C-alpha cells in the first residue's frame, strides 16, 4: 500500500524537541561528569590492596552491570526517592523525575566507567609506577603525575564510546515520563498520529550526533595510537 508519509508535524514541534534535547544533554553530561569522578574512585578502590575496599567496589560494579538500565531507572524513580524522603525528611511530592534520572544514570554509568578506567590504569606499564617510586614519588604523586594522565589518554576513545551509548540510552527515561529528546519526539508523534515520521526524524538526528561523535573517537584513537 506504500506508506503515506506526512512530515508536517515536525517544524511546529521543534521548540518542544529542543527542550527534550536539552534534558537529554543534561542527563548525559551529568552522568559523564559524575561517572568519571566516581568511576575513578571505584576503579582505584578495586585496584586497592585493601580487600574490603576492592570487594565493595567489585560488588557495586557487578550489581549495576547485571540489571537492565530500565530497571535501574525504575528503581531510582519509584523506590529510592521514597526511602530518601523518610530518611532525609524531604517534602514528599517534590518532582524528582529529572533528579532521579540523573542520579540513576550517573550511578549506573559509574559502574561502566569504573571498568574502563580500571583497564586504563592497568594498561599503564608497571614499570612506570616503579620508575615514579624510584624517583621518590609517593603513591598519590605517582598516580596523579604519572599513571592517571597516561591512563586517561588511553581511555579517551573508550570513554567517548561509552558516552555515545549513554546518549542513546537516555531514551529509556520514558519510564518516568520525562520528555527527553526521544520521549518528546514520540509524544509529538503520538499526539498528531505521526509516530513513524517523528521516530525516523529522531533516528536521523541521533545518527548525525552519534556519528559525529564517533568520528571524534576515531580522531582520538589515531592520536593515542600514534
Amino acid at each position, binding site marked *: 500500500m506504500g506508506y503515506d508519509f506526512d512530515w508536517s508535524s515536525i517544524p511546529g514541534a521543534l521548540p518542544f524537541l529542543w527542550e527534550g534535547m536539552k534534558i537529554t544533554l543534561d542527563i548525559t553530561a551529568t552522568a559523564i561528569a559524575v561517572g568519571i569522578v566516581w568511576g575513578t574512585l571505584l576503579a582505584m578502590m578495586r585496584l586497592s590492596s585493601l580487600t574490603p575496599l576492592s570487594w565493595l567496589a567489585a560488588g557495586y560494579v557487578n550489581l549495576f552491570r547485571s540489571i537492565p538500565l530500565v530497571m535501574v531507572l525504575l528503581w531510582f524513580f519509584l523506590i529510592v526517592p521514597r526511602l530518601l524522603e523518610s530518611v532525609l525528611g524531604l517534602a514528599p511530592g517534590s518532582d524528582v523525575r529529572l533528579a532521579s534520572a540523573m542520579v540513576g544514570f550517573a550511578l549506573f554509568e559509574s559502574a561502566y566507567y569504573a571498568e574502563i578506567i580500571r583497564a586504563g590504569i592497568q594498561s599503564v606499564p608497571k*614499570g*612506570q609506577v*616503579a*620508575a615514579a617510586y*624510584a624517583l*621518590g614519588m609517593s603513591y598519590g604523586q605517582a598516580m596523579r603525575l604519572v599513571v592517571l594522565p*597516561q591512563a586517561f589518554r588511553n581511555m579517551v576513545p573508550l570513554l567517548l564510546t561509552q558516552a555515545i551509548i549513554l546518549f542513546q540510552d537516555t531514551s529509556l527515561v520514558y519510564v518516568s515520563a520525562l520528555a527527553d529528546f526521544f520521549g518528546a519526539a514520540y509524544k509529538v508523534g503520538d499526539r498528531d498520529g505521526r509516530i513513524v515520521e517523528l521516530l525516523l526524524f529522531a533516528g536521523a538526528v541521533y545518527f548525525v550526533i552519534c556519528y559525529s561523535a564517533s568520528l571524534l573517537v576515531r580522531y582520538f584513537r589515531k592520536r593515542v595510537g600514534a
Partner: protein
Amino acid sequence: MISIRGVSKHYGSFQVLTDCSTEVNKGEVIVVCGPSGSGKSTLIKCVNGLEPFQQGEIVVNGISVGDPKTNLPRLRAHVGMVFQHFELFPHMSIAANLTVAQEKVLGRPRDEALERGLKLLDRVGLKAHAHKHPGELSGGQQQRVAIARALAMDPICMLFDEPTSALDPEMINEVLDVMVELAQEGMTMMVVTHEMGFARKVAHRVVFMDQGRIVEDAAKEAFFATPRSERAQQFLAKILHH
C-alpha cells in the same frame, strides 16, 4: 653504602630470593649477572624498597629499607634507578621528565630544576632534544635521558637493571659509554647486565646469581679467570661462545 644481609623473599610458596648477602662500598661498581629468572631484578628492586622482602636486612646509607618506619620515598629520592625499558614518562617532554621529581619530590624551584636537568642532558649529549617527547627519541637516546633523570636527583648511588638489553645492538654502546664515564668518576653503582665487556672494563666485583641465590661474589679478575661454581662456568660459556 649498600649492605644486603641474609635477604629472602617469596611470592606465595615460590622462593625468589634465598639468603642473599653482599656489600657495595662507596665508589664501588658491582655487576650482577646470572640466568633469566634467577632473581637479579628482584634483588636490585629490594635495595630501594620497590619490592618488599620477608627476611633479612638491607641497609642503604645507614637506613634500613625493610623497617616499616623508614620513609621510603625520601630514601628512593636519593637512590637513582635505571630500568630495562627506560620508563620515561611518555606524556611529558624530556625537560619535564628531568624536572618533575626535582620539583615535586625535592621541592626545588622550577628554574633551578630545569638548569640542573639541562646540564645533565648536555652531559649525556642530548641537549638539543629537551623539548621533544620520549616517543620521538631512539631507544639509546631514551636510556641516556633516563640516566640523566636519575642523576638530576643527586643520587648517592645508582641501580641499573639490564639497561641495555632492550636496545638495538648499535645503541648499546652509546649507553654503556655514559655508564663507563659515570663509573670512572667514582659513582657507587649496582648494575644488572649481561654485557661482560662492560664488566671487564669497570666492575670491581661480579655477583653471580642462580635460582635466587648468590652463587658467586668475587673480584672481577677472579670471576672471569676462574669462576668457582659449575653453574657460573656454564653461564659464561653460553654467553661468550659465538
